């Protein structure tokens, strides 16, 4: 029986092609493969389920075992956040044309290229920078590529990473910098967070600003939710040292926070996940890289970029790739790092998201998050045994320390039993913070949700 995915699995079609090709048996076509290359035994997988009913049933039976943030109350964030995804974002993400888009010509891909240009333009407006590449795999990748750009620009090979660092992201940065263990590596030095403030330790960083430092990497709001107050100072020190300042930012904060470029950042990177992408079990990551529109930076991008350009029709605008030759497609190992398939569909969605929000949407969303997260911190701080480590100057996330004897793991297990996903356990990654967890509050949380959490925590800790 023919398979629904394969028109030519119908016998007649196969026969047509076999006859036209002048063969008798399809096996003839594999004559290039030497006999001793053949698999020793056939692939032992179950036969295909030609029926979509069966496939659907099998998958839903499995996936129904999951418990999601939709029907549970979620306070997990930690570099990856549950924001509301407007229905229009999903609508556009689901359009077959975008979904199946390949790499056609500038004319046949025009709509997608325009959406990409609109992504870069709007993201540029958010970060207040004029040169933006197409997205890379993740925030971690963007940070790492940004740091690699800095090493090429400066010809130096050490990068300083300001704590608090997301272990996931830091892992990626280390890997991309080839670790610290071998030849030709970029050396990555992490300066621990200042536990008094939850912020980057500007003094300690400044101490490490040696002539070999290509870049300082700092994030704001940082991994623990704090808005970095020392950014301008750090950038000034770095510049004086001939180092680049690479700043990682959550773009959703940029309706209420000054863009890092205004504080001296040279290379701004960050995540695109909050801009209309679902949690997707972590499969919504995406990273951006943005700089001033200067050749010094532009010539070091490892990404592809779309630029607006003319067409043969006077007055008509279209889009083409700029600086393609410096990519790995254009120059193989001579190119800047490498590029390839990444998260381009999300880029279209990001463009939709930013267009929907506009300046007022970003400002209001920022305010809503500020208000909600501070409301929560304040409310939770009143629970006996709960301390908010740094109750001021944070955005969306804050650290709770529990001093009543229960471990964070125990607390989260008890909350889970009440259909609450408690905050990210920090005890392994930040032992210096004690028995702490990182709580995240976004526009998804109504006051009642926070009250529910407060009541549950009170009960659990009682």
């Amino acid at each position, binding site marked *: 029986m023919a398979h629904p*995915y*394969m*028109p030519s699995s119908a016998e007649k079609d*196969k026969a047509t092609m076999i006859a036209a*090709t002048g063969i008798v048996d399809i096996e003839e076509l594999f*004559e*290039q493969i030497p006999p*001793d*290359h053949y698999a020793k035994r*056939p692939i032992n*997988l179950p036969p*295909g389920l030609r029926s979509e009913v069966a496939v*659907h049933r099998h*998958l839903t039976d499995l996936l*129904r075992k999951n418990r*999601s*943030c939709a029907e549970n109350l979620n306070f997990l964030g930690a570099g990856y956040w549950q924001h509301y995804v407007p229905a229009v974002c999903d609508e*556009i993400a689901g*359009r077959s044309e975008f979904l199946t*888009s*390949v790499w056609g010509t500038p004319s*046949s891909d025009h*709509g997608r290229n325009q959406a990409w240009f609109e992504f*870069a333009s709007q993201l540029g407006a958010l970060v207040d920078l004029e040169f933006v590449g197409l997205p890379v*795999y993740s925030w*971690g990748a963007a940070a790492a590529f940004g740091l*690699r750009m800095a090493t090429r620009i400066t010809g130096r090979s050490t990068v300083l990473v300001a704590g608090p660092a997301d272990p*996931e992201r830091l892992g*990626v940065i280390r890997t991309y910098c080839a670790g610290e263990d071998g*030849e030709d590596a970029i050396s990555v030095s992490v300066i621990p967070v200042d536990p008094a403030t939850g912020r980057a330790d500007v003094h300690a960083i400044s101490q490490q600003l040696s002539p070999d430092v290509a870049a300082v990497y700092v994030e704001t709001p940082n991994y623990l939710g704090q*808005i970095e107050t020392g950014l301008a100072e750090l950038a000034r020190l770095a510049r004086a040292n001939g180092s680049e300042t690479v700043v990682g930012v959550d773009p959703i904060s940029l309706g*209420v926070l*000054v863009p890092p470029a205004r504080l001296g950042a040279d290379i701004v990177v960050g995540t695109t996940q909050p801009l209309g992408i679902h*949690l997707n*079990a972590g*499969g919504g*990551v995406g990273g951006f890289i943005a700089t001033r529109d200067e050749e010094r930076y*532009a010539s070091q991008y490892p990404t592809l970029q779309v630029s*607006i350009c003319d*067409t043969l*029709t006077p007055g008509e605008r279209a889009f*083409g*790739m*700029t*600086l393609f030759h410096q990519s*790995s*497609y254009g*120059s193989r190992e001579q190119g800047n790092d490498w590029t390839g398939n990444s*998260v*381009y*569909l999300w880029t279209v969605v990001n463009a939709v998201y930013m267009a*929907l929000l*506009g300046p*007022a949407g970003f400002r209001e*969303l920022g*305010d809503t998050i500020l208000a*909600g997260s501070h409301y929560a911190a304040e409310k939770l701080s009143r629970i006996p045994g709960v301390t908010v480590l740094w109750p*001021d100057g944070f*955005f969306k996330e804050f650290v709770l320390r529990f001093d009543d004897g229960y471990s964070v793991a125990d607390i989260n*297990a008890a909350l889970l039993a009440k259909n609450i996903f408690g905050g990210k356990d920090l005890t392994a990654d930040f032992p210096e913070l004690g028995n702490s967890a990182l709580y995240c509050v976004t526009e998804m949380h109504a006051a009642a949700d926070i009250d529910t959490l407060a009541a549950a925590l009170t009960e659990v800790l009682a």
Partner: protein
Amino acid sequence: MIKEFHAARWSEPLIMEMGGPGRRGFVPPEPIADPGRDLVPDGLRRSIAPDLPEVSEPEVLRHYLHLSQQVMGMVGISLFGTCTMKYNPRVSQQLARQDFLAQIHPHQDDATVQGLLEIVHRFDLMLREMSGMDRFIFQPGGGAAAAHTHAMVTRSYFAARGELGTRREIVTSAQAHPCNPATAAAAGFEVITVPLGDDGLPSLDALRSVVSERTAALMINNPDDMGLYNPQIKQWVDAVHEVGGLCFYDHANFNGVMGRIRARELGFDACMFMLHKTFGVAKGGGGPAVGAYGCSAELEPHLPGPLVDLDDGVYRRRENPGGVGRVREYLGNLTEVVKAYAWLVAMGSDGVREAADISVLANNYMETRLMAIPGVSKSYPGMTKHRMEMTRYSLGDYTAETGLTAADVQNRMTDFGVDAFWMSHEPWIIPEPFTPEAGEAWSVEELDYWIDVLAHVLDEGRRDPELVRTAPHHQVVAKIDGSSLDDPNRWATTWAAYRRKNNLGSDGA
């Protein structure tokens, strides 16, 4: 029969040119409490609003609907070679949209994601069965990222053996995908590229002449994009193993050999499958993608974490100490892993075998027809054996005759609802190359139509070269003038840059 076609043309403005002051596309929920200015540290509250458009929801929707109609994608016919354009079953698109996948946070407790972890684990097992490898991970966000992963695993492997200081070279071939040399270089290795011989294949002798105790790894794809299968690939692997190097099989061109060969049985230590190509996941214009990376038990300790294990009926994520750490945050693009799993469940061993058969048959069917078209020649015609799932052709003779390039022909083909072919990766060995890949998901009529359109356009070009040179004419926009693209004074990746460089106001006027 050539059909009349016209792409949707909406003459759509940029979103930044749309809307008007005060319009709203999305309104966040009101703040729970007063978001006083003091919630932001002094001097850090943004005072100049970002220069974003102000557009209502229906306008935003319609704008992007217009843009969507202005993308051909696989709504038209695309035989984009080296990318194995497949049918993307909508059933898994539908599943992936649902809360039980879309609304999962990566930091959730394992207990709450058992279904998902089970799929990851089952799929790992299935890919092991297909490749002979001992463990797969899905963290790499594309094929190049999987190649990079291999370079990093190679570092970790030799670092653990104390050989990283001497294992400085990664060998590849001139026909290997650029991501292999590029990621090897980014990982700090020197790249050695084996050139092609007269038969289009890099020779075993040439390989032998470059491998040594400095060789860290071989990174290569096979069959290559020209449809040539290296019959000495086992000897290649042996040669590299003999000097202590690792062998990585870039299995992007897996479609034609599915069910017939196993990377591990050929001796490879690691391989990668591209879920967004071979395994039925949508391309999305370039992702979200997954380069599934699989390796031998020997390399497993060097994999990035977390790994998914089944212990006592419970699925768990665990770190892999001593491994690469992370190549990307979290477990990978799991929505795409679920889709690939669903595809493989639907295909089964019989289905993947048949897909391989059909894709190789369809390519050879096309070759028979294409070679009958005047002006079309084949790469390395001396290689008379049937090609695999792709064949690289050349329009060199046609260009000599008419002055029209493969790019001109491609542009004109889009006027008939047929999207670009793949030409060639760097380096361009064949003049005016083109590389269609028929795959198993297009009907014979569609393949015939593609061929008919090519023949028609070549014909047109002989009769009226200007028509083809200035194509497309029935597309969304005309052919681009790329002269500004690499000019720092004219390129513009953002609207702000464009306006500045062209002295335009904020409305673009």
